[in-house]
């Protein structure tokens, strides 16, 4: 066995001996760090679940142009000409598609929750419609275009469909920023907690440190057990936080399932995957190490 490996094994043994000597303090610190880590992990879990949903929704602006119900089919199809002219006049590139009312009805009947309602109506209450898909570059021209579309003959309602999707995307982005800020703040809290825990440990082992130093121990040899203690604290707290969040999804999903059923959706919150979980464990170990590193360096520099 190499000397390097032996020294690390000795450091791990020393760290575990220190923990066994004061298990209450260690577990309390683990709990505090776990709580601090649980909040950003919960936020990340939420974002990871919402992100695929919001990504599926188009955030390119769409305009639905509903014609009056009694518009003849020939008039309806002919309307594409003034619409295209308007687009050309304003230099807007857009995809224009016509949706006949029969097709719209068939699509709605496919949605099981509405089919029953439609069958009670007898006829087709839906109008013919056009859908204009614009690029994001033309969003500033949207308002003027909508106004002009409303003046065209046989046009009943003009509706901009993408606003709420954009708002959702903006909200997710704000939430992400907030989460990042919270993660940084709570990361600092974790570092401070580990820093203080390590400081108290170093103070209580001052005699042992000064003896080993007199006997020829290098700084690395003296510091190493405290780094392991910080890493143990980080990994244990990270694992507890991940476990608690994963466990709390079960009752939360029961409530979500009831709500999602109303929208014919099977949306449910899933725990973080293996890789993100491992990355979070790695991050919590790093935070533990940073706290221990800063504390040991400061305390032992003062002592010497």
């Amino acid at each position: 066995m190499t000397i390097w490996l032996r020294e690390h094994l000795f450091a791990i043994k020393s760290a575990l001996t220190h923990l066994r000597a004061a298990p209450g303090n260690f577990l309390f610190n683990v709990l505090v760090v776990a709580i601090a880590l649980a909040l950003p992990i919960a936020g990340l879990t939420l974002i990871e679940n919402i992100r695929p949903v919001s990504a599926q929704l188009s955030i390119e602006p769409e305009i639905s142009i509903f014609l009056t119900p009694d518009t003849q089919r020939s008039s309806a199809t002919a309307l594409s000409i003034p619409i295209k002219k308007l687009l050309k006049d304003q230099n807007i590139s857009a995809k224009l598609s016509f949706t006949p009312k029969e097709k719209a009805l068939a699509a709605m009947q496919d949605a099981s929750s509405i089919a029953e309602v439609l069958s009670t109506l007898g006829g087709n209450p839906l109008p013919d419609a056009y859908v204009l898909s614009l690029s994001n570059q033309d969003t500033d021209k949207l308002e003027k275009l909508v106004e002009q579309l409303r003046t065209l003959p046989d046009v009943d309602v003009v509706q901009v469909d993408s606003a709420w999707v954009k708002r959702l995307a903006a909200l997710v982005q704000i939430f992400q920023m907030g989460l990042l800020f919270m993660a940084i703040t709570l990361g600092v809290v974790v570092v401070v907690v580990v820093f203080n825990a390590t400081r108290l440990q170093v103070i209580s082992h001052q005699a042992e440190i000064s003896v080993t130093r007199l006997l020829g121990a290098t700084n690395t040899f003296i510091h190493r057990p405290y780094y392991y203690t910080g890493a143990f604290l980080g990994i244990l707290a990270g694992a507890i936080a991940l476990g608690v969040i994963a466990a709390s999804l079960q009752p939360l999903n029961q409530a979500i399932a009831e709500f999602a059923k109303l929208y014919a959706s099977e949306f449910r919150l899933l725990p973080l995957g293996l890789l993100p979980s491992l990355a979070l464990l790695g991050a919590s170990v790093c935070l533990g190490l940073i706290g221990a590193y800063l504390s040991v360096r400061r305390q032992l520099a003062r002592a010497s």
Partner: protein
Amino acid sequence: MIEFDNVSKQYSRDAYALRDVSLSIPDGELIFLAGASGAGKSTLLKMIAGIEKPSSGRVIVNGQDISKLKAGSLPYLRRKLGLILQDQKLLSDRHVLANVMLPLIVTGASASEAESRARIALDKVGLPDKAQAMPMELSGGEQQRVAIARAIVNRPKIILADEPTAFLDRDNANKVLSALKIFQSAGVTCVISSHDEQFLDQASRVIYLRHGQVADSWQAAVAA
């Protein structure tokens, strides 16, 4: 070989622990540093171990100038020294064997090697049956002999002992000094500080310090 070349240690403007000390300690000698409390004995020992650095002058230990040693090199110098301190500094939460093994563990020795050498060291100081005892269960003399075992386990070339017989009765003090003399006879340089003059005749040389200066130095009658 230990050499002090015009060494002074000044803590403040008028407070000198050592003043212009020059001396030479050849290999294999048993040196007694004598003098009253505050004479500078402990400071002199601490300088050999690199615990204190001189304000001026040079301290050469085994050819290395201590005052020029970088902090990172000090541990490697200390591994060649055996330190015995007045209060032993045994770790109270570890049994005797673990305390004696510690100097070997810090050098990266395997646990089995450290244990077998620690048992040999305990045997040499007459405490083979105390390996599993806790330091608090031992008498003052036994604790001091454990400290000696810890100091010799690394097979040092120099042993530095700061007041090793303080707080010991004559019988225990003699046991401690006898143990040190055995190592000296094996070629180890022993530098012992003591204000107790009844043991001076056991040294090969006595260096008498007063107010941080070498006031006198003589070859002891027994050793001569």
